């Protein structure tokens, strides 16, 4: 397809961009590191420096639209050089989730102070045995069958159970949570009709899980235990105030939901890379210490979040470029991670690139993913067991076609880069 036709596609609805969003980003980057999408008033940020600048400028750029995106027209006409008041009035119509990811200013800082203490090295170390035992069990079962579909059979149950264990969700409720999460559309869903399906309004996964978390947290305030839910139940804001229980309920549900999907997608993106590169696979099998650097390069090249979104709260600038209050930005993390000004031969997979941890797969600034330390650990753990128990892992040709002509299906999302399924053949 010629470049002009490609850049005029609608990033928010056109599912032909799912297979290779990187080509779309590349063509847009060729026009400029900050460039209007489809000639409209939403800017696509594809440059690394520019993306970092936006993500770090949480004074001028609001996160109110961080997960709802910018596919629909603004529900109001921005007035003046500062639209803070309009953002407050129209937050609901902007699709703002009343969650940590969409909060700004002190509201965000207060809650983040609590969320930022959840996945500390000590707490993660305490889950090491559980995580590895469970990974070992799942992988052994899959290897004994000689094949698996890693996204749904391994990745999702694994990350769900790990985060459930860390939080302290009782075993009998974990399957219920997974069922509602699995049935819900992905974050950044491109299929708008999904939202209107069915006559009776149903509880969203967050609402459903919220009912449970309300009970758990109430219980933990009465009967503290040694788990993250107790930490959340007892946590106070930096000024000493005890948060409203509802805020902690929403945070718990969000950690559970957000904690699973992106990690599961990361695991399958990494596994696709390993399965398609036998030399890399053997190198990792022989030296598992290379798994963490391999994962960083997967995060750079194919992290599970393609983009996040911001709206200019007031007139400001990116580099020397004027940005008017009310302008919306698609901050393409996946594009910034391939910006040739920042990364030498950006399309190439290279282990141990200098300063690789500066990639933007987990964002940057105040909204940097608080679960990143957990994601890195759990994905590395299960990959290690897969490599240890196999002599060769490859993509199933029956399901995905022969090498060189693979068919892969990605979830219809303008946020998530995630395979819908990935069938593997496991030789041992």
């Amino acid at each position, binding site marked *: 397809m010629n470049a002009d036709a490609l850049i005029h596609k609608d990033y928010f609805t056109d599912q032909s961009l799912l297979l290779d969003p990187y080509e779309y980003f590349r063509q847009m980057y060729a026009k400029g590191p900050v460039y209007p999408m489809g000639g409209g008033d939403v800017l696509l940020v594809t440059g690394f420096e520019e993306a970092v600048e936006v993500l770090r400028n949480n004074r001028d750029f609001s996160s109110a639209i961080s997960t709802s995106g910018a596919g629909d027209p603004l529900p109001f006409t921005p007035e003046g050089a500062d639209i803070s008041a309009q953002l407050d009035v129209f937050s609901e119509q902007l699709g703002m989730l009343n969650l940590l990811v969409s909060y700004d200013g002190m509201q965000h800082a207060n809650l983040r102070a609590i969320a930022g203490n959840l996945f500390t*090295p000590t707490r993660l170390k305490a889950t090491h045995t559980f995580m590895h035992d469970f990974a070992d069990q799942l992988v052994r079962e899959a290897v004994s069958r000689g094949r698996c579909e890693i996204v749904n059979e391994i990745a999702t149950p694994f990350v769900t159970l790990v985060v459930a264990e860390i939080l302290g969700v009782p075993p009998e409720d974990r399957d219920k949570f997974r069922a509602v999460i699995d049935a819900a559309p992905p974050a950044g869903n491109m299929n708008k009709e999904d939202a209107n399906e069915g006559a009776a309004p149903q509880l969203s996964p967050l609402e459903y899980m919220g009912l449970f978390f309300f009970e758990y947290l109430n219980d933990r305030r009465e009967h503290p235990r040694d788990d993250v839910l107790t930490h959340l139940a007892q946590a106070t804001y930096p000024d000493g105030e005890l948060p409203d229980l509802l805020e902690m309920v929403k945070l718990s549900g969000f950690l559970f939901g957000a904690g699973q999907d992106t990690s599961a997608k990361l695991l399958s993106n990494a596994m696709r890379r390993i399965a398609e590169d036998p030399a890399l696979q053997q190198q990792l099998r022989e030296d598992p210490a290379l798994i963490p650097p391999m994962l960083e390069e997967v995060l750079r090249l194919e992290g599970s979040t393609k983009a996040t979104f911001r709206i200019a709260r007031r007139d400001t600038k990116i580099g020397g470029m004027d940005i008017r209050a009310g302008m919306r930005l698609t901050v393409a993390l996946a594009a910034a991670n391939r910006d040739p000004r920042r990364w030498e031969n950006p399309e190439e997979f290279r282990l141990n690139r200098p300063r690789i941890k500066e990639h933007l797969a987990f964002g940057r600034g105040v909204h*940097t993913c608080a679960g990143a330390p957990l994601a890195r650990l759990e994905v590395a753990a299960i990959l290690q067991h897969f490599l240890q128990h196999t002599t060769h892992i490859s993509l199933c040709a029956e399901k995905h076609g022969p090498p060189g002509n693979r068919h892969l299906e990605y979830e219809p999302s303008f946020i998530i880069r995630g395979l819908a399924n990935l069938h593997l053949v496991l030789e041992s």
Partner: protein
Amino acid sequence: MPEIRVITRDGDQQSIVFTPGTTLMQAITEGGIHELQALCGGVCSCATCHVFVDPAFAARLDAVSDDEDGLLSGSAHRCEQSRLSCQVRLTEQLAGLLVTIAPEDE
């Protein structure tokens, strides 16, 4: 509004206003000093917000946790004054705090 004083890697000193309750890392980065990378966003999992705290203020800070200690021990520039700025919460009592951004680890 209280202020902190920050010495950057090229030796310049800047004063930055802070809101009590925020972390030292937030105050420094929001004050426009971008050489402090703070890659993990303040969740105590990297050591890219390493600073040296002037000894005159050391007694007014909370103790270093085991997690912070573990991360700092991975830095080639660790010294007595080392802190991860994301783990230092600023209070009115810390007005005037003087910190130096630590050299970057390779």
